Every structure is written in structure tokens, then in C-alpha cells.
């Protein structure tokens, strides 16, 4: 074996090893979380759960799904679903309209409007002014949150770039046939940009599902989404090092782990089917105006 082959071989072995280790490391905490959620109190508190569950119990899940903790949990869960559903719809509505209009060369002030949108990616007024502004606008409830996080410049640019790549011929034919702008968008552009639409929808939905800080400081407790609920629960767990909250057969940690599992299940379920779209956004790039 000559020297050339040797470096190639070493490189290959290294590549497989590192990629495999990284993939395992990415997955491990989630497996551990699930195993801990269904392990017995003794096992979790003594630290004997490492990978697989020990002394399997389903009471932690049971208690948050239909037991005594179910009420607060499902309120938070339905709030999250509400924010994700309506928020994504609202965001998509303004972003698709904006992306479509901005993809037209004949638009007057196209460059200026583009700049105003792209500028927000690089400059923000800061946290205090943003907060005071939300307060002044009256963002203090569910619909306020839906509005306040309406659109993101990156997603609009992504849609705009995709729309401008679509051939104009079909559009022109449709206009000759008497289609108006909305029909062109709905019947031609949207069906022809399924991939971009899926990617942007996914980004918006994930942002809504995962949002924490502003949801916590802007809306009252009853409107708190799941992430805020989870965090508040974590604070009580961490501040109670003896974890003496209950006398059940599962530990407070398992309760938290079970909530985490419940909160990421939707993502884990759709992930394998939609991973193509998850990975797409970064490659569209070309943010440059």
C-alpha cells in the first residue's frame, strides 16, 4: 500500500467514525430523556438510568395526560397549538403576498421596500425599546402574540427569490386568459413552489412552537404556551434539590422528562418525512439584494 492510499484510508475511517459519533451524540439525549421519563423513582434518583429505562412505569405520562397535572399541561399545550396554527397562517399570508409582490420587476420602489425588509435582519432597536413598543401597541394576549411575531425578513427573501425563479410564460398566458394577480399567485406560483412554501411554513411553525421569552413576558399565565409552562416547571424542580415534591413511584425529574417528550413528539414525528424541507432553508441563501 503506497502513501497516497494510506492517507485516504485514514481519512475515510476518521470520516465514518466522526459522523457516526456525532449522529449518536445528537440522538442520545432524546433517548435518555424518554428512558428517564418512564423509569422508576429509585432508578432515576440513584442515577442508574443511562440509556435504557429501568423499572418501567408510565405514571408520569399518565399524570400529565389525564391525571392531576393534566389541566395546566393541556391548557399550555392547546395555547401552543393555537399560536402555531394561527401564527403560521398569519405569517404565511403576509410573507407570501410580500414575496410575490417583491418578485415583480415592474414594482415601483421595489429596491427601497426590499432594503427596508432586509435591513431588519441586521439591525434591531434593542430589547427595551421593542418591549416598550409591544406594550404601547397593546400586545398582551393571544392575538397580540400572533401579530407581534408575524413575519421574518429571511423567510420573505427566501420566498421572493424562489418566486423570481419561476418562468414568466405561464403567468403571461394566464393573464391573457383573464386571470387576476391573486389567481396567478394562487393557481400558478404557489403550486409551483411547493418546496419553498413547505420550508417557510415549517420555519414559521417551528418558531411558534419553540418560542419562549416574549411569550413569557408579554402574555398572562393563562395564555402561556408549553415552552413557558415547561420552564416554570423546571424552575420548581431545580429549586427543589431533594425532589420531594411527591411521594409517587416516579421522580420529579421523570415528570419533567415526560413533559419534554410530549412537547417534542410532534417534531420527532414529522421530522423524518419533512427533513428535506428542514434542511432546505440554509441552501436557498442568496439573501443579498
Amino acid at each position: 500500500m503506497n502513501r497516497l492510499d494510506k492517507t485516504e484510508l485514514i481519512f475515510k475511517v476518521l470520516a465514518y467514525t466522526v459522523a457516526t459519533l456525532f449522529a449518536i451524540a445528537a440522538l442520545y439525549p432524546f433517548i435518555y430523556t424518554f428512558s428517564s421519563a418512564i423509569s422508576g423513582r429509585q432508578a432515576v434518583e440513584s442515577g442508574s438510568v443511562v440509556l435504557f429505562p429501568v423499572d418501567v412505569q408510565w405514571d408520569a405520562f399518565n399524570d400529565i395526560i389525564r391525571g392531576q397535572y393534566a389541566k395546566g399541561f393541556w391548557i399550555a399545550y392547546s395555547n401552543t397549538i393555537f399560536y402555531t396554527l394561527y401564527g403560521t397562517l398569519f405569517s404565511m399570508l403576509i410573507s407570501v403576498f410580500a414575496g410575490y409582490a417583491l418578485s415583480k420587476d415592474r414594482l415601483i420602489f421595489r429596491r427601497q421596500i426590499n432594503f427596508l425588509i432586509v435591513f431588519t435582519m441586521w439591525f434591531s432597536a434593542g430589547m427595551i425599546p421593542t418591549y416598550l413598543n409591544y406594550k404601547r401597541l397593546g400586545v398582551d394576549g393571544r392575538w397580540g402574540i400572533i401579530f407581534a411575531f408575524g413575519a421574518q425578513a429571511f423567510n420573505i427573501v427566501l420566498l421572493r427569490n424562489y418566486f423570481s425563479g419561476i418562468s414568466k410564460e405561464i403567468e403571461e398566458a394566464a393573464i391573457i386568459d383573464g386571470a387576476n394577480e391573486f389567481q396567478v399567485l394562487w393557481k400558478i406560483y404557489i403550486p409551483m413552489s411547493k418546496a419553498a412554501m413547505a420550508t417557510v411554513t415549517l420555519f414559521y411553525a417551528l418558531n411558534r412552537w419553540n418560542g419562549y421569552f416574549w411569550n413569557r413576558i408579554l402574555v398572562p399565565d393563562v395564555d402561556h404556551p408549553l415552552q413557558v409552562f415547561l420552564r416554570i416547571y423546571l424552575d420548581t424542580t431545580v429549586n427543589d434539590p431533594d425532589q420531594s415534591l411527591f411521594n409517587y413511584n416516579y421522580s420529579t425529574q421523570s415528570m419533567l422528562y415526560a413533559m419534554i417528550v410530549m412537547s417534542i413528539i410532534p417534531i420527532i414525528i414529522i421530522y423524518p418525512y419533512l427533513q428535506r424541507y428542514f434542511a432546505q432553508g440554509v441552501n436557498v441563501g442568496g439573501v443579498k439584494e
Partner: protein
Amino acid sequence: MKNDQIIIQEDVLQVERREKIIDEMERTKWKRYWAQVKKDWALYLMLIPVIMFFFLVRYLPISGILVAFKNYDNALAIGDQDFYGFFALKNLMFSDQTRTVEFWRAFRNTFSISMYGLIFGFPIPIILALFFSEIKNELYRSITQILSYLPNFISMVVITSIVSLMLAGGNQSGTVAPGVITQLLINLGVVEQGVNIRIEPEYFRSIYIISDIWQGAGYGSIVYFAAIMGINPVSYEAARIDGANKLAQVRYVTLPGMAPTLTIMLILRIGSVLSVGFEKVLLLYDVQNYSTSDVLSTYVIRLGSLMSGGGASGGGSQISVSFAGAADLFNSLIAMMLVLGANFVSRRVSETSLF
């Protein structure tokens, strides 16, 4: 000679005519714009929501920056408050109060977390992409790649909860064992029994940066992977014939091939050096490790009492909102300067720039 004159005359006439046309166009500019708008009214209608949104949510707050120069009183509108000038900024940056110490501590922490994040976090996605591109079995490669992206889509609250629990130190009486990673570190002899690394100041940066790499490196590798895949295989072939081994191929073919992507990503990273993901710090830090963990954004949040319902949200000490505003402004300005600076340098050096 005569011919030349005729040509000059014609030129003058043409220039005059052109000027007339330009004048006419300038005069009817708005009329023509209006005709355009009327014809494409639907397009402009579509832009109304987005313009309103960005105005209300992103541009309107800019006037609130004034809070840094005022004596904040939440009963009044920003415009009606007493003007204090640079009092808050000066007091924050150069006084002998704890506020000043905390401000500079937050500044230093922001900077060092970002710098370490850049030094360790920037190369790893590139190396990962290199390795992914080396795996020729497509199925195996896709599986490892897809798995490595996953943590990027999980919420910060969940990530930090898992990190906190895995790094927990256990309780004093020993009835609750340390978290699984703490346990591993104890077994390896890296930390001593009974040390709570979750709240010890000396571990915060490592925790922050390692968990960042764990969460983001896979996803971050996509863009480099695409760049590597875009390199013409013929270049590798040529290098191999010239006797280049694998390392030399990486050095002379792969890296130059992905140079534009590298530059853009590096500017992006440097530009955001001061915008440490505040949500993550907020979720991960603890009173006991403020000395290494408190960054400008989290300091602003505490000073403005955003989380506790005081200060900016009504009641509480109001002058501190002005201090928070000043710290906030400082942060935004430096962040902006870094973006512009990085962009400028890169445009000069490599003709690749963001804007």
C-alpha cells in the same frame, strides 16, 4: 469641414431633444407611477400588510431608543419624558457604582463567550461537512446527516432543560444522584464528587459552547457540504494524478473551492459576535455564575426588570429602565458596527459581501 459642422449641429439638436424628453419624463413621473399603481393595484395591496407589520414592529421601536437619554416614567409617552442626556450612559460606563462593574462584566462575558464560540464553533461544522462528503455510502451518509440536524429544531427550553438535568450536581444528602454527564465526568476524574458544574462559574462557557456545537454543528454543516458537493470532481482527479494525497487534496482543492462560502459565513459569525443567543444564556445561567455567564442582553433584561413584572412593565424602579435602555443601545450599536465592519473588510479583501 462642412460635414463636421452639420454633424455637430445634429448633435446639439439631439441633445436638446433628449433633454426635453427627460424633462417631460421627470414632469410626468408621478403621473406615470400612479398609472402603474392603478394598473397593478393588486401588487401594492399585497404589500400593505407587510409594510405595516415592519413599520409597527421593527421601525416604530427605534424611537424608543430615546429611553436611554430620558428619565423613564411609564405613565408618560417617550416623547414627554424629562430629558437626561447622556446621564444614564455615563453613569453606566464610568461611575463607582456596582452598576458599572456589572455592565463591564456583562460586556466582557458577551465578548468572550462569542469569541470562544467563534474559535471553537466555526471550524467544527466545516470539518463535519468534510467528513460527511467523504462517506460514499449514500444511505449511511443521509442517515447520519439527518440525525445530526435534529437538535437544531428542538426548542431552547427543552435543550437547556435537558442540559441542566444532565449536568445537575445531585443533592447534599445524596438521595438524588448527579446528572448523567456529571456522573461521567466524575468517573473520568475531570470533576470532583459534589461539585455542581451547572452553577459553577468556571464551567459556564464550556457548557454554553459545547452544547451550542452539539445543537448547531450538524445543521451548520449543510451549507459547507453543499459547497463541497459543488466542486468539480475533475479537480480531485487532477490533484491525484499530480500525486496529492488526501490531506493535500483537502488543502489545495476542497478549501479553495469552498472559500466564498467560508468568507460569507465568517462575516456572518463575526457580525453577530455581540448578539449572543440571549435566550439560551437566560435559560442556562444561574445567580451563582453571573461572573462568567451574565451577558449584555441578560443584564438588560434584569436591569429593566422585564421578567419580574417591575421596571419597564410598570412600577418598580424606573430610572433603572433608562439604564437598561442605555446598555441595550450600547449593545445594538456595537453589534451593528461589527456587521458593517465585517462586511466592509470582506468586500475589500474578497469581493464577497452581504450588502
